[in-house]
């Protein structure tokens, strides 16, 4: 076909003299248009429910005009006076004007909230100062500092400078425990607020652990399912899928019932005298709880791709290896396992990516040490810090994309078999 198209300049022609490429495009065009019509609803749905929200998320991770919108005078002052200029009377005059407008429009809280992300206490500073804004007389500097001395804080002013431009990388900096210094450079956040790096590390480490556990548990099950006669394997498959069909909330809470201090497992251990009544093991509301519950919930995502890869592998491969002199372990390791790699890779990728973004289970059974990055994203959403949530989510998305890219480089995406 490529030859025919390439030769359309003076090459092959149809029997009635039209260039072959043109004829082909015409013949296929109709079928292609009809096919497009069929997928159009899905395309539109994906566009509005996926592409647009993700785009907005990415944009909001960079931008927040809560402050900039409500502080036009300060914005103008920051534009005229570059970083490092003294915070003089003209700056306080602009602040007074903006606070006055904020009082009228009742937006002081919104402004303060934005600054509060970086300088704690800023919200109350803004609201309390704005309350008396219409009483300020020049010189404004003295008047405002008399009202609240905290205004004489270079960090606060740097933060306002940052916020006066609606596009900012600050949320991304904050998401990796960095911040703007007073002079506008980048420095590490104070130790007591450094949580994100640790949480990202914990999320990836726990996800990797859960993926490995799912693989260890799922591989034998999938193998059993793939080798049993169909009528038994179908029955067994239902048992694998049963938790899949049960509400996630129910499954998670059932783990609470099993694992809590007064729960079934601890009661059994105490009942058999293995542990004392005062030595009940804490298995939930910590990392253990998160790992156990998530491994259980994500197991089907490992079993299904593995099963679909194992099912069509005929037993003759292992038999051939055995007849050629390999022990059953060698035959398994060198012949069977390599052929199931597409399933291992698919299941691993699926479980890992799902685990990285998991929210409800760690929230319910994770306690303090079992929280993942998603729980913090949810926290920021609840507190209307959309930009911070978006920045964290974008980083998560980026990490997953990098992982996917690495996977493609190392194993090859065409080796992936999801079902």
């Amino acid at each position: 076909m490529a030859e025919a198209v390439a030769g359309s300049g003076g090459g092959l022609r149809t029997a009635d003299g039209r260039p072959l490429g043109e004829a082909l495009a015409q013949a296929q065009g109709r079928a292609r248009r009809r096919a497009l019509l069929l997928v159009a609803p899905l395309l539109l749905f994906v566009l509005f429910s996926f592409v647009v929200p993700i785009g907005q998320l990415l944009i909001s991770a960079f931008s927040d005009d809560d402050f900039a919108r409500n502080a036009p005078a300060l914005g103008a002052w920051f534009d005229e006076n570059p970083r490092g200029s003294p915070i003089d009377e003209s700056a306080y005059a602009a602040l007074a004007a903006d606070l006055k407008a904020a009082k009228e429009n009742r937006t002081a809280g919104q402004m303060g909230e934005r600054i509060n992300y970086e300088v704690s206490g800023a919200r109350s500073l803004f609201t309390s100062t704005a309350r008396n804004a219409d009483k300020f007389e020049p010189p404004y500097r003295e008047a405002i500092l008399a009202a609240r001395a905290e205004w004489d804080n270079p960090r606060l002013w740097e933060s306002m400078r940052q916020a006066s431009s609606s596009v900012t990388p600050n949320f991304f900096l904050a998401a990796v425990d960095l911040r703007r210094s007073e002079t506008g450079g980048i420095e590490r956040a104070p130790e007591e607020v450094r949580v994100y790096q640790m949480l990202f590390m914990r999320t990836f480490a726990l996800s990797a652990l859960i993926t490995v556990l799912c693989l260890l548990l799922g591989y034998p099950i999938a193998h059993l399912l793939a080798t049993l006669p169909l009528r038994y394997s179908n029955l067994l498959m239902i048992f694998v899928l049963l938790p899949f069909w049960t509400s996630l909330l129910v499954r998670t809470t059932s783990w609470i019932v099993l694992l809590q201090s007064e729960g079934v497992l601890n009661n059994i251990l105490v009942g058999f005298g293995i542990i004392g009544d005062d030595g009940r093991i804490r298995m939930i509301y910590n990392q253990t709880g998160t790992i156990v519950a998530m491994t259980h919930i994500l197991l089907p995502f490992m079993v299904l791709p593995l099963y679909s890869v194992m099912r069509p592998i005929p037993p003759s491969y292992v038999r051939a290896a055995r007849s050629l002199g390999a022990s059953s372990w060698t035959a398994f390791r060198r012949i069977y396992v390599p052929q199931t790699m597409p399933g291992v890779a698919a299941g691993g990728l699926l479980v890992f990516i799902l685990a990285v973004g998991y929210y409800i289970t760690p929230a319910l059974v994770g306690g303090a040490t079992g929280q993942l990055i998603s729980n913090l994203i949810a926290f920021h959403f609840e507190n209307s810090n959309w930009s911070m949530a978006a920045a964290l989510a974008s980083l998560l998305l980026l990490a997953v994309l990098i992982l996917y890219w690495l996977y493609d480089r190392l194993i090859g995406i065409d080796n992936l078999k999801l079902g």
Partner: protein
Amino acid sequence: MTGRETRVPSETANATFVEFDRVQKSYDGISLVVKDLNLTVAKGEFLTMLGPSGSGKTTCLMMLAGFETATNGEIRLDGRPINLVPPHKRGIGMVFQNYALFPHMTVAENLAFPLEVRGMGKSEREAKITRALDMVQMGAFAARRPAQLSGGQQQRIALARALVFDPALVLMDEPLGALDKQLREHMQFEIKHLHESLGITVVYVTHDQGEALTMSDRVAVFNDGVVQQLAPPDELYERPVNSFVAQFIGENNKLHGRIEEIEDGRALVRLDTGELIDATPVNVSAKGQRTLVSIRPERVEFKPEMMPDGAHTIEAEVLEFIYMGDLYRTRLRVAGSDDFVIKSRNTLTQRRLQPGERIRIGWAPQDARALDA
């Protein structure tokens, strides 16, 4: 016949290599798939297990290879019982129906596998791989993956892999089943030549009787878990011992009747429609017994000058004439049956029978075999 016998080296001709001793196999504990199998394979022999699907032939092969365990009885390899020896310690090469070439390895790696698990050094390995690939004329394909090869090429590689570690016994489970007719016939001769030049013992399973006749020293015809006949191909074809073997091997005309007279190896059979024909009794003995007379299509004569003296003839009506190139195939109505077939060679002087024509047919008594009905 003489050609076949000289093929087996004389000093090992009668040395038993594989022995099935009262072997029985059941999968469900209710019925037997293999019923009391007693079979010996001589060193250097090419033995084929032939039979319809479900006749137990593949089960026997799998028991020999070690993938199935015998429910009862003993299997001996070179005098040693191997019932409890795991497959990888039996040292038996095997060619599978779907070739079972490892898809994630190249051709060379596939061949290296049995040598690696035996701990063979790299240089020795390479020498053996090269030799095995050259043996099947696939030397140029060492770096390919199985998926890049055609069916026939994969077949050759599977063969080379089963032979590369020099096993004394090679099992083949319908290895040519997936090939087209021409390639299959070509490969039959190649396997046969490899067997002859290497002096290995081969146990071959197939349901294709043509394949069994072409390749084997002896053929064991399986049906219903029992060996019906174990004989060299010519004997099997020309002197089947029962009606199953007669019908399973080659094309056959069947005539039902009753023994009219029987004496010193000759029988006169009265067909159900009243005609009398000559036959050789095989497993019938009494006068009046019901019998099935089996005659090969190529042994039926319709030209009076070709028939033996005193032969009984029987009337036939030509129903259909089919030109098959090297042969003419003519379908007749004989003694009330519509599917009596004769085959005649396409020679210059051969006569083409016309549908509707009435002729008389006959045969030498030794070509018609009176079997159990």
